[in-house]
């Protein structure tokens, strides 16, 4: 680690907008404003009703993190195989009284596929991003991106749409063909930034003491290695030398965060590899990440904040037994850990049963009675099997939404919030207007 004076110098240099390369980095948000003035695009602004919290990025620029009226940009990998990730996030929103929309009118960013098979191109990726941005805009809810890769991709696509007039015009034409327009969000916001912004409210609701827990953090590559100037840093977290999320929430909750030598390595997901060359993903995850976390840091849990990272680090471990590596280190998303500390049901909400490495020991260390929770969950499964209606975190979608991305009362384009759109009231699962 650098000493305090060296850290200060690095931070000063950063405010001059320079990366190690010495190249000036321009703030894409300033150019967005100019393009909006010229009528080339619209900006989806963060407004007071989004209850923003101010944070700082790599160069010390301000970044507004909206904490209310959010449009969930779900992650296909999370929803597909680690569903406790989104359900924990929505549960924390209910607990803290935040409004949101969780709709079927969203596609993934499609960047997993692009990074895995290259069967797409930047214009298509930009159009997919812009279609989702426009949908969020027309519902008057600010997009909150669940996945690290979607976050990285959307940062790249926003930059591309601002800097490349040809791509911008093409995408606008495609969008207009479907009655949409080019709207770029004022900030691209990753859910872990929301978790960090909500730290005071989360800590105020903490029900379990996590001070005995040693956590190691895996920083998702696409959070900070793609368009690095958009990632959030804080001098109080690693002296501002590594991103502030997801470590910040662990420190706020009182967990012990331990360092390990390979923190900078990727997880081994590889996009293509996790599906068709898992021997690589497994070897990399076990040898380069899990082993140092266990042997160097004596971790009780690995915490990360991206779909691919949770999947790879968690699911690659079980087979390690074949090589005498029975680490079985639990791997959770920051928001699952926060939800558990706040008293979320480990199975019904945190959905820990989809994880390959058992979390029982960790739950015990947190003081959570997982045995009764598990029995309760088994009973719940039986009831579901017999036709009982499932418990939901918010009101289910209307039947018409199976087909149409319906207008929910919003006026386009949204200038001022003269008409409130339908939102989910936290806790009671009813739709309010």
């Amino acid at each position: 680690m650098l000493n305090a004076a060296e850290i200060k110098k690095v931070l000063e240099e950063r405010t001059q907008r320079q990366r190690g390369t010495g190249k000036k980095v321009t703030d894409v948000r300033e150019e967005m404003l100019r393009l909006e003035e010229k009528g080339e695009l619209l900006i989806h602004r963060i407004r007071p009703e989004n209850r923003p919290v101010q944070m700082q990025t790599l160069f010390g620029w301000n970044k507004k993190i909206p904490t209310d009226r959010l449009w969930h940009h779900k992650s296909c990998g999370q929803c597909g195989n680690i569903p406790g990730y989104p359900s924990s996030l929505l549960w924390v929103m209910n607990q803290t009284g935040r409004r949101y929309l969780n709709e079927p009118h969203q596609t993934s960013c499609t960047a997993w596929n692009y990074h895995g098979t290259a069967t797409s191109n930047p214009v298509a990726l930009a159009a997919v991003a812009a279609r989702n941005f426009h949908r969020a805009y027309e519902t008057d809810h600010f997009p909150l991106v669940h996945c690290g890769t979607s976050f990285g991709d959307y940062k790249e696509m926003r930059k591309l749409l601002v800097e490349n007039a040809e791509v911008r015009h093409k995408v606008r034409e495609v969008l207009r063909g479907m009655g949409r327009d080019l709207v770029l969000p004022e900030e691209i916001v990753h859910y872990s930034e929301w978790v960090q912004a909500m730290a005071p409210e989360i800590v105020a609701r903490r029900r379990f003491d996590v001070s005995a827990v040693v956590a190691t953090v895996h920083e998702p590559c696409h959070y900070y290695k793609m368009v690095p100037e958009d990632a959030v840093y804080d001098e109080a977290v690693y002296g501002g030398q590594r991103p502030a999320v997801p470590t910040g929430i662990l420190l706020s909750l009182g967990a012990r965060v331990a360092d390990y030598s390979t923190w900078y390595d990727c997880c081994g997901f590889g996009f293509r590899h996790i599906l068709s060359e898992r021997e690589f993903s497994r070897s990399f995850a076990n040898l380069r990440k899990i082993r140092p976390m266990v042997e160097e840091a004596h971790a009780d849990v690995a915490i990360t904040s991206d779909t691919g990272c949770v999947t790879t680090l968690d699911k690659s471990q079980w087979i390690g037994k074949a090589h005498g590596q029975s680490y079985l280190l639990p791997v959770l998303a920051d928001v699952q850990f926060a939800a558990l500390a706040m008293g979320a049901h480990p199975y019904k909400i945190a959905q820990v049963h989809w994880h390959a490495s058992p979390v029982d020991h960790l739950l015990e260390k947190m003081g959570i009675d997982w045995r009764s929770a598990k029995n309760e969950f088994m009973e719940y499964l039986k009831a579901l099997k017999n036709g009982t209606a499932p418990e939901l975190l918010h009101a289910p979608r209307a039947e018409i939404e199976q087909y149409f991305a319906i207008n929910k009362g919003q006026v386009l384009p949204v200038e001022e919030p003269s008409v409130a759109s339908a939102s989910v009231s936290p806790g009671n699962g009813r739709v309010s207007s």
Partner: protein
Amino acid sequence: MSVVAHLPHRSLSLTEEEAAQPPSMELTGRRRMSPADRGLSQTLYEEFHQDPRYHEYVLGCLNCGECTTGCPAARFYDFSPREMLQIAATGDATTLWDALQEKIWSCCQCYTCNMRCRFGNDIAGIISVMRELSVRHGLEATRKTLAPFGRSLTLLMTVGTQVSADMIQPDFFRDWGPFATGSDQVWGVSPEVMRKAIPLDVLQTTRSSWEVSVQTSLELFRIYEETGVLDMLRGLDPDLTEMLVDIIEERREEFREAREKYRDELITMKGPVASFEG
């Protein structure tokens, strides 16, 4: 007596016909290329250098190897980002052709190299440009590499999510162990019931990551049609592409029927829902 005299002697025993063939590997380690491949490699080389991203991504190289030091793929494969950047910057048509056969697919797209490169090269990006090229031209090696992706491509193109719960089958993901796949052997209920136990209604499906509305999937497909993705896929797998077109045609029909059914509700609505015709 010299040492050389003791070395085993191997006589040349090729038939005349065999001897007339060029060696299978040239001394540079390059593959033997047919005249057709040689022609194609030249086309690929030209297209690669004409890509507008080329000059943005390839800025210069010190050969310092900083990129390779942090590269996960370099630890396990005969691959290095330094070499890829060198091929992009100074390679000829044959070196590019060689890289397109296999090496480009080793990269994890983690962007570690980009972050470390003092030149500011976009190495992960230039590898993607190479991959796109190999997909567009349907190279045989690329078809083989991407053969296992038919199912996820179908999902991606028709509903825009990459995985579904029913793809995570215990027999295919055996290495993930018994817990990660929602297998009924562990919990005693079907995967459908396991998905019902997720408290988010749009996730209670096994066929996609979440339920995607018909309008959304049609809008997505229109993007693919209008931005050349569908044509690109045709070059790689024409049968799969035709199947996708059929699936979408069915969804369009479903959309038209729904427009009739919900006509009264839709009349009052503004925005894309009112204007989008499928």
